[in-house]
């Protein structure tokens, strides 16, 4: 404790210089934490957008066939008793053709439960023109929603009638006439040019089935995905259970890419920031050479003296890091509160709000990293002490 106390006092021998070094460390901490906070928020946003964009948390399907009504009933009943499950919904998916007579376009389509899809994502298929899908297509005339790109290609507008062709589960072609009730946008132009949505019943009619291509499981908390997937695989070994993570491999690729980029930039920033401590310690060592010589003459080991400089660096790191932590949290809160909109990312057409996470775990890790980096930066220039002759040091003023 005496040594730490001595290091603490040594820091204040040159208040302005120490203040400057600690300030640089604080600014570095703010920059790193803000960047990490933004990155974590972006990852979280991407994850939730991926899940709410239609994947759900878990998808249950039957290998090479549709889920039969009794399968759906059994799985749904079991899932209803699980309090980690928010709700489930069914979907039929198909690839086919849509035609207005002169023009025919290849489409990817889904038969959905609109109310449940809206529960998964409040912003599900935002309507650009016309209205949404009716709740149940079985008791109404067949209707469809077209992506805005697809509607533009066909020159279709709400109220028009188009013919939809697809292969049934029995492997034969089926065609139904659908009334266009509206157009929607996903925010992804490529999808808007190909996607058609039908009420679930209409989709079943098109594919000539009473079953569903997949059952989508939506959880209350994304963190429970692995546990629930494992449980489902145990209870229903004959069905295919896939998590959102498995269904969206690009998520991990994006996360890895951004983590790598950030790690390199973070290390560079940390090195630049640490240089300020190295510089401060270089000056301190030059000024305190006679003091070092005296301590060596008193029988204090070189190692001990060097460690003391590292402690000075660590204290400086602690002061700068703590200041940076508080400032970063305040800045993040202010920016989140300001509701700043970021420009649309590549492949998207709508802006998104700037969010910066204040993650206590990340803050704790960053605090430790700044302290260790500052201690190492202070340790480096002490190499001079390792070969310092006592009498040479004592001659210094």
């Amino acid at each position, binding site marked *: 404790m005496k040594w730490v106390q*001595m290091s603490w*006092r040594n820091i204040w021998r040159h208040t302005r210089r120490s203040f400057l070094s600690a300030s640089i460390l604080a600014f570095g901490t703010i920059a790193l934490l803000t960047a990490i906070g933004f990155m974590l928020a972006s990852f979280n946003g991407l994850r939730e957008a991926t899940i709410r964009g239609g994947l759900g948390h878990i998808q249950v399907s039957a290998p090479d066939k549709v889920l039969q009504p009794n399968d759906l009933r059994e799985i749904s009943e079991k899932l209803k008793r699980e309090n980690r499950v928010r709700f489930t919904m069914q979907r039929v998916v198909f690839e086919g053709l849509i035609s207005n007579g002169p023009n025919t376009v290849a489409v990817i389509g889904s038969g959905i439960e609109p109310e449940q899809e809206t529960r998964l994502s409040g912003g599900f298929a935002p309507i650009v023109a016309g209205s949404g899908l009716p709740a149940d297509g079985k008791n109404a005339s067949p209707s469809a929603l077209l992506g805005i790109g697809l509607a533009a290609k066909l020159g279709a507008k709400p109220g028009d009638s188009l013919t939809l062709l697809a292969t049934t589960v029995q492997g034969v072609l089926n065609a139904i006439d659908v009334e266009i009730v509206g157009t929607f946008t996903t925010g992804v132009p490529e999808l808007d040019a190909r996607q058609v949505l039908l009420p679930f019943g209409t989709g079943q009619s098109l594919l000539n089935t009473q079953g569903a291509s997949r059952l989508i499981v939506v959880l209350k908390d994304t963190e429970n995905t692995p546990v629930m997937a494992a449980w489902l695989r145990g209870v229903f070994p004959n069905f295919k259970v896939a998590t959102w993570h498995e269904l969206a491999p690009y998520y991990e690729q994006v996360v890895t890419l951004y983590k790598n980029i950030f790690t390199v930039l973070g290390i560079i920033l940390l090195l630049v920031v640490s240089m300020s401590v190295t510089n401060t310690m270089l000056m301190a060592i030059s000024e305190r050479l006679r003091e070092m010589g005296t301590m060596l*003459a*008193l*029988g*204090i*080991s070189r190692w*001990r003296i060097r460690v003391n400089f590292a402690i000075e660096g660590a204290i400086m790191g602690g002061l700068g890091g703590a200041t940076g932590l508080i400032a970063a949290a305040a800045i993040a809160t202010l920016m989140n509160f300001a509701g700043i909109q970021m420009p649309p990312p590549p492949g998207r057409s709508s802006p998104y709000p700037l969010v910066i996470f204040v993650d206590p775990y990340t803050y704790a890790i960053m605090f430790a990293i700044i302290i260790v980096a500052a201690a190492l930066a202070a340790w480096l220039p002490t190499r001079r002490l390792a070969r310092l002759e*006592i009498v040479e040091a*004592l001659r210094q003023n």
Partner: protein
Amino acid sequence: MKHYLVAVDLKKEYRHGAIGVPALRGVSLRVTAGELIGICGPSGSGKSTLLHVLAGLDRPDSGRIEIDGAPINVADESKRATLLGTEIGFVFQSFNLVPVLSARENVELPLWPKPFPEHERRSMAETMLARVGLKDRMDHRPDALSGGQQQRVAIARALVGKPSIVFADEPTANLDSKTAEDLLQLLAELNRDLGTTFIFSTHDQKTIRFASRIVLMHDGEVRA
């Protein structure tokens, strides 16, 4: 009579570029435990170099030094540090107190690496400061002490680890004559009361009378 410190044919040369300046030209010295030796000589005669070499702060180019029968000039770094922390104390001309530490902490400093309980370390420092007449100045930093008081703190620091021998390199050079006399009087008392061997250097003929033996140096050689 058994000699506590034995130095034989010590040679040391400083180099200034291509020119070698001899500081010690074959100095030999035998010191009995409990002596108070004054090394006298003009500036540049090699007094400080001899004290540094004898204390193990510097290495001679050749020659042999033994303290209590153990050679010190060949001791490795850790052994030298141990020796400096236990057997040998050193008092500097410019006091060399650590400015961020109080008088008591400066005296405690050589004890910090040792496994003494804090209260014992504190008690040892306070006893030694009281012994040099600074009982009331223990919590003062060096910049709040006079030159004489700072040198007393430095003496207390050199003695707190109970070394067998203390070297003092011109301890009165930065003090006025009255303070210098008081300080050497203190050294003589400590030498008598504690039995510690003292070797101090001086170029002041007035202060040399406190020594029980005088070693006269000139041009890197012992003349008498």
